[in-house]
């Protein structure tokens, strides 16, 4: 094997860049009402501005520990958020800021959690990787790959048993498709005909390794769907309208008793995997190409094209900026958790005693 080839085997930045899906030329024509599109835009702005702020706060060393941003991937979360009901259940990974906000959880409470404050939604006990709001049926963010796909089946099973028409939506990454729990969860959901939608956010990388380098098929989720008798669904994850349309279909199907679906949304993260990662294992051209197809820019242009006055877009942007400022203030005003909290809530009685 020549030296050059060998290096490509581990210096992934030297590999052929993978480029974004060209935007579907028909997407402007999708029958999506303008108020829905406004909300899709607003949601993407929220996720973007919130996470940019979170990033700034890391830089100021106010966010401790690790943190995983979805900058560049906002269209997926926004698209699904618009298609679900408040009483539907959602599950996310450690890359869960967006999905938590998309379920309507207070940005201030989320930001405070990132800062490890007592006014955080988990009282500072969970942190960035475990954002949860049972009140909003946002059933948690899970930091060990795989498990939450299995757990998500449980809320779907519950809805089925209780005879409600609640749907469960579970988000996960491309890298997650190679762990055992993925397989168990998919088979189980299908045989029990559960009202659940599995959403793979394929951002082309697991952590620092390109997904195609370690996956036997091109589309890590969609190419596995037939192994569970499911349709092969791939969507442009940088286009909120495309995501919304597919999301509405599969969620309606699940709600009406049609059983599970799996959707693979192809997208890209603008930054590194986590806080500490500069993302240097990616070909620079590739990063550029994807930044050029930024979901928010794409959407912004589309709304202008469809006749929304620029002023409206500016107002949305500004009102979101205000919200993010307020969230930041709220978070910063929080106190560090009081020491007693360390010993509470292991058990349902509120305490943590293991003895009598």
């Amino acid at each position, binding site marked *: 094997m020549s030296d050059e080839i060998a290096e490509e085997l581990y210096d992934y930045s030297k590999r052929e860049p993978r480029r974004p899906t060209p935007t579907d030329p028909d997407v402007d024509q999708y029958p999506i009402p303008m108020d829905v599109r406004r909300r899709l835009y607003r949601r993407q702005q929220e996720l973007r501005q919130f996470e940019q702020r979170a990033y700034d706060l890391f830089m100021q060393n106010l966010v401790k520990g690790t943190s995983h941003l979805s900058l560049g991937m906002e269209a997926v979360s926004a698209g699904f958020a618009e298609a679900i009901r408040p009483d539907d*259940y959602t599950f996310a990974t450690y890359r869960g800021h967006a999905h938590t906000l998309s379920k309507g959880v207070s940005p201030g409470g989320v930001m405070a959690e990132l800062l490890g404050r007592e006014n*955080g*939604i*988990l*009282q*500072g*006990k*969970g942190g960035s990787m*475990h954002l*949860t*709001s*049972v*009140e909003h049926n946002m*059933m*948690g963010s*899970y930091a*060990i790959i*795989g*498990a*939450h*796909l*299995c*757990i*998500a*089946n*449980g*809320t*779907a*099973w*519950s*809805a089925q*048993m*209780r005879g409600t028409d609640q749907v469960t939506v579970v988000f996960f990454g491309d890298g997650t498709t190679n762990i*055992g*729990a993925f397989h*168990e*969860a998919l*088979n*189980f959901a299908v*045989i029990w005909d559960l009202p659940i939608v599995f959403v793979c956010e394929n951002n082309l990388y697991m952590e620092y390794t390109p997904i195609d380098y370690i996956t036997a098929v091109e589309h890590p989720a969609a190419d596995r769907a037939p192994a569970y008798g499911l349709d092969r669904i791939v969507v442009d994850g940088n286009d909120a309208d495309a995501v919304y349309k597919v999301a509405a279909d599969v969620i309606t199907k699940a709600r009406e008793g049609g059983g599970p679906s799996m959707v693979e949304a192809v997208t890209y993260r603008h930054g590194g995997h986590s806080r500490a990662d500069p993302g240097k294992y990616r070909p620079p051209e590739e990063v550029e190409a994807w930044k050029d197809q930024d979901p928010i820019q794409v959407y912004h242009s589309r709304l202008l094209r469809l006749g929304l006055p620029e002023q409206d877009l500016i107002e949305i942007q500004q009102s979101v900026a205000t919200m993010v400022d307020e969230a930041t203030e709220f978070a910063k005003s929080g106190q560090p958790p009081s020491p007693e*909290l360390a010993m*509470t*809530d*292991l*058990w*349902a009685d*509120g305490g*943590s*005693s*293991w*003895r*009598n």
Partner: protein
Amino acid sequence: MAELTYRNAVAYGIAQEMRRDPMLVMLGEDIAGAGGVFKTTVGLVEEFGPLRVRDTPISEQAILGAAMGAAMTGIPVIAEIMFSDFLAVCFDILANEMAKSRYMTGGQMTVPVVVRTANGAGSRFGAQHSQSVENWCMMIPGLKVVAPSTPVDVVGLMAAAIRDPDPVVFFEHKSLLASKGDVPDGEIVDELGTAKILREGSDCTIAALAYMVPRALEAAERLANDGISAEVVDLRSLVPLDTKAILGSVEKTGRLYTVEENPRLCGWGAEIASIVADEGFWNLDGPVVRITTPHIPIPSADVLEDLTIPSTERVYETIKTTLN
């Protein structure tokens, strides 16, 4: 009052609770029509139907995951993991998810799951189907751990485990399944975290669990013939742990022996020994002695298997030679 086997007490206890709570459901491999590979769930699907007693694929992560997810929405679930050795294939969901979810979410999540599983040696099944793994669960903050030794305790602790809002791992001992005992009529609900003193004594305390309890009792009987008065404590529950009963007994007797099926290192006997060596130190009249399975896998041949887990003889001999 009826005489039940330990095996039948399992289904009996579950049925009591399924009648009471129409939301309570069960899932696991071969638990429905087949009545479980140990016949511990016989009759349940016939009474409660295949939607409440549901067969699954060989997907232990999917089983515990579905149980946890449903429980998070308020549905109490009993999940069967056929052999306790198989907890290893779903250990992430057990130890990292179920156990931690309430704490990590600042108290938002409640996970009323009972994980039932067949534990222990004595069936000549070899190293991968004979382990005693109560310590695998005891060591995980957020899991409650129960291991009854008699039919009536199976029924009462099963009810307590099911009604408990926290995740409970319920160990059914394979070698006790055929044992019999009286079970009173009417609803039986016991309490987690309570040990039982099965035999009073003054010279030493023997703390035992599950299959080791009858052996501890037999050893105590033999010791009595030699003029040694041993008190036998059936721990029943490891988390919560009845430290009052243990420390109280040692205060009286001055000596502690633990009898456990866990292989030696980091078994629950170590935990109890360490509690007594700290909090009960000044009551001790001599060494705290642990009687355990050696630190080896369980061999399959009958003669070898019988050598590994603590026998009545070994308990008796150890106490006899070390009590002085």
